[in-house]
């Protein structure tokens, strides 16, 4: 029968071993506090500007009136309506997106955004980062052969992922296709590249 510190311990009683462990472990520094778990991405956190922008984009994409080639509107696409609806939801200045009392067509908007004092051009490589901060970014491509195209840049759920894969910016595309795709798929590669604009006031 073991005797430790004048105490008698039975073989089937492990408490002497626990005491020993306690004595040894008491010499160890206290364990650090558990790390704070990462906060959820802003894009999926209600109330953030990123979340609001994504909600506006999703609403526009699912709007049946913005679907292409509807029987009551054959041959029509609605990239300009969708972009204007999303811009309104984001509180962006609207003058450059209107032409008289109607929404500007994409070719018109391309010209007006370039000359607007309320918007500034940003580089394609920066467009994704700006959108990831919850700021509206419009991509627009004019088309000398016919209709141009315009989109809004989609905030990423995992910021930096699209850039690391060489796919940035990702855009909310509403035209003859309705989807969320890299800009390279939404815009015609054989025309002049699209230009990106963000509002001056955020």
């Amino acid at each position: 029968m073991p005797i430790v510190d004048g105490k008698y311990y039975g073989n089937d009683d492990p408490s002497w071993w626990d005491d020993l462990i306690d004595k040894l472990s008491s010499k160890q520094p206290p364990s650090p506090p558990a790390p704070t778990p990462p906060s959820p991405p802003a894009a999926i956190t209600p109330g953030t500007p990123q979340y609001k922008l994504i909600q506006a984009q999703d609403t526009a994409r699912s709007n049946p009136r913005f679907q292409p080639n509807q029987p009551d509107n054959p041959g029509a696409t609605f990239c300009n309506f969708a972009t204007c609806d999303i811009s309104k939801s984001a509180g962006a200045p609207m003058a450059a997106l209107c032409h008289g009392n109607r929404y500007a067509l994409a070719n018109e908007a391309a010209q007006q955004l370039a000359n607007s004092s309320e918007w500034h051009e940003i580089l394609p490589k920066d467009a994704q980062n700006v959108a990831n901060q919850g700021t509206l970014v419009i991509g627009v491509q004019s088309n000398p052969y016919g209709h141009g195209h315009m989109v809004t840049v989609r905030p990423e759920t995992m910021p930096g992922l699209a850039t690391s894969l060489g796919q940035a910016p990702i855009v909310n595309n509403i035209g003859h296709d309705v989807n969320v795709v890299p800009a390279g798929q939404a815009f015609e590669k054989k025309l002049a590249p699209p230009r990106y604009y963000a509002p001056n006031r955020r």
Partner: protein
Amino acid sequence: MRFYCVLIASLICLGSWCGRAQVISEKRSQEVAKNLSDYDGKWWISADHYERTGFFWGADDCERWDARVPTSYNLPEDAFTEITKYYEAYPDQMALAVVEVSKKVAAHLPHRKPLKGGEVWNNPHGFLTGFWYQTSAESERFGFLEGYLGCLRTYMKGSAESYPKPIHYYDDKIWDYVDSHGADVSQAPVAYTLRRFRDSPKAN
């Protein structure tokens, strides 16, 4: 944990950006276009959403700009569900052409007021250009050619002889031609590019 769920969801979404899942099987890719009335309930049930959309747009494109007949296939997408419901409710009518069923269901769909002010493509064949073709899923392109060639065979004399090859043959030819040419071709109607690959009439 939530962070990792988001990560996984993002990767899944990324997969959908990189390419679409709709693939036409080897067997189907060898099919030759049929008359429009031969596309029936069995075909409808086997087609995915993209192929159905492509089919309606292809048929409509030919009817409007080539055959010059009243368009019978231009339906809102919410009609698709109704067509499916019809075939499910009346399995004995699976041999009925999709065009006939679409007429039946279209009569019961609410009329939507047109939205004025969009990008209205008044040019022949509208936005169904080479660029549209290249950005469309394989099954959508396949459906477009089924509808377009099906309409030609139905309404235009000699079309069966002009386009006797499998649908996949024309898909490849159009894709390659658009890809290897400039904006003048990618901005031109797919229908014009398709014509480049029709067979010449045989001399008697």
